[in-house]
């Protein structure tokens, strides 16, 4: 069990290999093989994540840091004293992320096998999905900010590739998809600037990017109950020391579940520290006398007393620095001192300011990745991607990265009050605004996209009020029910396309169930709309229907209605997802949303925090919107009468699509029970016996220092449920008829004169895109045009054409005529003439007459003889 964590690198390796296979051999594989490779790679990660989970529970939640082989010393610049290791961190937070990312990811892979059937780039799609999963798992398991950033950028690239996956669709739709992909990439780039600035500041201040160093414990206080105090306490169970020290009656009972797990799994005595309000290590050390607390029976350190300042990760260092008094200093461990003062270039400032700046920059990064105001505009457009992508990336996984980063960095946000207030406002306003925009959308996926933005706003607001565990909890429940809703909407879209297809085939007397995509492609070719010259052969059959009916949009809810009879499984699971999203007791969304609201309430009432009031107000209003737009969607899609003939021919989806729906539906119901609040009374249906109370928070507290347990507030629960039910009631009143839309397919809210401006405002998405167009894009384009003129007129026409070209020509003339032609060629030619002249003289000797040669020979011989005889003759 101890070594189980060592398989962690495989969790990245498997999807990477899957992606590699599908990239390289994809075109040669058939659909089945591609889908199996992709899905098995994804499924393997889930089992490894389960292995990590059992490793943690079996080893007292000891965080593991894994150095994968071959990647040792990933980034090392000895001269600059820079070393950033490639380390994977297996702790409770990362494993929580791993579990739901891999689980939802696997289901979506399976679903995509059905949904993408017939696509010409089927294997490429699975390669992208696997690549995305690999990067997401790097993001989540990285033990330093740089690894997180690698994953962060990697998922950004995959998101770009997948949003624009249908870049070659005909009739300008491909361009729209590509533009959506670019928009996502660019909006995220703005956020990445924030992340990079946060990274630089962190590195400058702490000299490291590691979250935690090996053997460092994120939350020593939470490990105190593991310390072996006294044998006489054997078997004794005491109430767990919650960090908050809130004394709730039922707490002890519930808390012991976790403690028992530990006791059973290690077969060791569990004793309890009575200390509250103290950051663990010291209290433990005092009571047990230094050594003993270190040489614990668990085989690992349960506090950080053995580490010097320099040996701590950034959060450990930040905690120490932030607790220092004015003018106090701390030994770094190498004899030098460190104080609160941070020097950045010529700017000297306090650690508080630096941490606030880091948090602020991180907020910008999170606003990009987690789609918050002001950078959320990319997410609704990202719905251009295939539906599994919308579900995988833009609901369940990638968009949670920003929230994950903020929760991981909870130390920074905990101490930065002003920034936390900003975080709350951003999150709350985003939740409300996005909820409002969801009201007026017609596209089934766009409603869900705005809903996602809105729910991410809930999470961000939760971070702002310090409810870090609640944020993760909501992220987790949201991953399940939003993935469910997206996959359900995909099922609906798929069905509508089939229905429309069917209709069309009958209309032309082709008969049968139309899968004749060749005919469609041909028909499409003859239209000749492919303005970009792409080879339109073999387009996905599903997406070519537009060639025959320009007005039919399978995603438009105005064409739907009454689908509950045609697709019962999709309908039931969709309603479960919608109810969970709306926060209906006892589904998962209720518990997570309620925990955030209750935390906001307590922050407002007990701590008197402004952010609590803001969050409570904005989020309650957003909760109302949530329930209302989901009611509207369910009734428009599934109830009433079908508003298009295609509805009559909609089939239920294939098992690859419905099975994930069912699984996600079951999880959407029950996943909320993993984190029941304290003192839930009868509301928990007695299920705390199975799941325990706030199990998830307890679990998270091992790695999230400032997480705290949420308590049940009857008042908030009742108000929130009342708000939700009121919205549903209102929604049914408005949209409940046989056909809620009038004959012009207009929304009842639009028909009503009082609400018309609101509906128009919502339908126009609050004119965000237009505002950005005016504020940024058009000035940008104007500047670009101006610079283009400067470039063309000045640089091209004047500098290039006049100065450079003419100068060049002049110099070239000099070089070519007098120099090259005269001097160099003259020399060469002169040598040639010289040789020719000499040879002309010399060749005269070559007469060709034998006699002449013989005379020459004779003369030569005579000369030689005379020369030889000369000494003799001379005496």
């Amino acid at each position, binding site marked *: 069990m101890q070594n189980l964590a060592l398989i962690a690198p495989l969790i990245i390796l498997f999807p990477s290999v899957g992606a590699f296979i599908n990239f390289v051999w994809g075109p040669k594989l058939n659909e089945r093989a591609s889908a199996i490779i992709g899905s098995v790679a994804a499924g393997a990660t889930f089992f490894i994540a389960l292995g990590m989970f059992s490793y943690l529970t079996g080893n007292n939640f000891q965080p593991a840091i894994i150095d994968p082989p071959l990647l040792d010393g990933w980034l090392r610049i000895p001269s600059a004293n820079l070393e950033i290791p490639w380390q994977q961190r297996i702790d409770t937070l990362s494993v929580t992320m791993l579990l739901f990312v891999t689980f939802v990811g696997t289901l979506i892979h399976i679903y995509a096998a059905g949904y993408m059937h017939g696509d010409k780039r089927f294997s490429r799609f699975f390669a992208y999905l696997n690549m995305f999963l690999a990067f997401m798992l790097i993001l989540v398991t990285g033990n330093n900010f740089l690894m997180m950033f690698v994953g962060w950028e990697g998922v950004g690239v995959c998101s770009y590739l997948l949003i624009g996956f249908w870049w070659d669709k005909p009739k300008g739709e491909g361009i729209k998809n590509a533009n959506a992909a670019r928009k996502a990439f660019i909006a995220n780039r703005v956020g990445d600037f924030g992340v990079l600035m946060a990274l630089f500041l962190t590195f400058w201040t702490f000299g490291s990017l590691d979250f935690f160093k090996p053997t460092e414990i994120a939350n020593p206080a939470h490990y105190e109950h593991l310390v072996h105090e006294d044998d006489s306490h054997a078997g004794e169970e005491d109430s767990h020391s919650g960090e908050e020290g809130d004394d709730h009656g039922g707490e002890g009972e519930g808390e012991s579940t976790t403690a028992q797990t530990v006791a059973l799994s290690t077969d060791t005595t569990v004793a309890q520290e009575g200390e509250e309000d103290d950051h663990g290590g010291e209290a433990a050390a005092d009571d047990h006398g230094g050594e003993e607390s270190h040489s614990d029976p668990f085989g690992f350190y349960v506090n950080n007393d053995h580490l010097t300042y320099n040996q701590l990760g950034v959060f450990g260092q930040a905690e120490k620095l932030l607790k220092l008094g004015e003018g106090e200093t701390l030994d770094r461990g190498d004899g030098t001192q460190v104080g609160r003062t941070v020097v950045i270039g010529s700017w000297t400032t306090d650690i508080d300011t630096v941490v606030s700046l880091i948090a602020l920059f991180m907020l910008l990064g999170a606003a990009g990745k987690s789609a918050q105001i002001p950078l959320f505009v990319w997410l609704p457009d990202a719905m251009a991607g295939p539906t599994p992508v919308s579900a995988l990336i833009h609901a369940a996984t990638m968009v949670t990265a920003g929230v994950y980063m903020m929760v991981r960095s909870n130390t920074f946000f905990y101490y930065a009050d002003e920034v936390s207030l900003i975080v709350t406002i951003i999150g709350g306003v985003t939740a409300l605004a996005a909820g409002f925009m969801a009201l007026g959308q017609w596209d089934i996926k766009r409603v869900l996209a705005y809903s996602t933005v809105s729910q991410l706003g809930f999470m961000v607001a939760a971070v702002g009020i310090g409810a870090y565990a609640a944020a993760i909890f909501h992220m987790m429940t949201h991953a399940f029910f939003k993935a469910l809703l997206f996959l359900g909407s995909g099922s609906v879209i798929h069905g509508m396309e089939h229905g429309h297809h069917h209709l069309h085939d009958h209309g032309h007397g082709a008969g049968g169930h139309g899968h004749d995509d060749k005919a469609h492609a041909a028909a499409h070719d003859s239209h000749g709309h492919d303005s970009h010259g792409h080879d339109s052969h073999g387009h996905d059959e599903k997406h070519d229907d537009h060639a025959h009916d320009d007005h039919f949009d399978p995603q438009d809810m105005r064409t739907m209605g009454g689908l509950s009879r045609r697709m019962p499984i999709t309908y039931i699971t969709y309603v479960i997802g919608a109810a969970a999203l709306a926060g209906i007791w006892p589904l998962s969304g209720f518990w997570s949303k309620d925990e955030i609201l209750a935390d906001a309430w307590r922050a407002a009432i007990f701590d008197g925090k402004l952010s609590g009031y803001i969050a409570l107000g904005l989020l309650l209003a957003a909760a109302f919107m949530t329930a209302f737009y989901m009611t509207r969607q369910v009734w428009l899609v599934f109830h009433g009468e079908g508003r298009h003939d295609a509805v009559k021919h909609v089939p239920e989806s294939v098992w690859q699509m419905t099975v994930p729906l069912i699984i996600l539906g079951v999880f959407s119901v029950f996943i909320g029970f993993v984190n029941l609040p304290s003192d839930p009374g009868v509301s928990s249906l007695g299920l705390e016996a199975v799941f325990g109370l706030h199990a998830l928070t307890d679990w998270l507290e091992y790695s999230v220092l400032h997480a705290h347990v949420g308590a049940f507030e009857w008042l908030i629960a009742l108000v929130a449920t009342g708000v939700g039910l009121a919205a549903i009631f209102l929604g049914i009143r408005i949209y409940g008829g046989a056909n809620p839309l009038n004959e012009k397919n207009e929304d009842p809210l639009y028909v009503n004169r009082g609400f018309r401006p609101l509906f128009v405002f919502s339908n126009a998405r609050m004119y965000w895109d237009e505002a950005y167009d005016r504020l940024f894009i058009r000035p940008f384009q104007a500047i670009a045009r101006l610079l283009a003129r400067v470039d063309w007129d000045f640089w091209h026409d004047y500098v290039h054409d006049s100065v450079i070209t003419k100068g060049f020509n002049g110099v070239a003339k000099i070089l070519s005529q007098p120099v090259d032609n005269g001097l160099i060629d003259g020399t060469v030619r002169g040598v040639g003439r010289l040789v020719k002249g000499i040879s002309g003289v010399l060749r005269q000797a070559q*007469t060709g007459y*034998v006699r002449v040669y013989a005379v020459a020979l004779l003369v030569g011989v005579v000369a030689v003889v005379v020369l030889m005889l000369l000494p003799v003759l001379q005496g």
Partner: protein
Amino acid sequence: MVPTEAYVILSMVLFAMGTLGVLLRRNAIIVFMSVELMLNASNLALVAFSRQWQGVDGQLFTFFVMTVAAAEVAVGLALIVAIFRTKQSINIDELHLMEG
């Protein structure tokens, strides 16, 4: 016994005749014969000196010269026949294709 000087003088006369024949005659056959005359003049000198010094080196060398001369005659005559076939003449003044 005939003195060696007589042989050498005869040899010189023959060699001079051969040289003049080579230089002055136009008929290739005659030129060829003149060359043979020069070779035999040198043979005579070799044999004469051989007798004078009581050594066999000169006589041995003579045989080599005669062998080479025989081979030369074979090759040379063949060339002359070939030249005659192409040019219908063996006048060496008409053969100056190697002129520079």
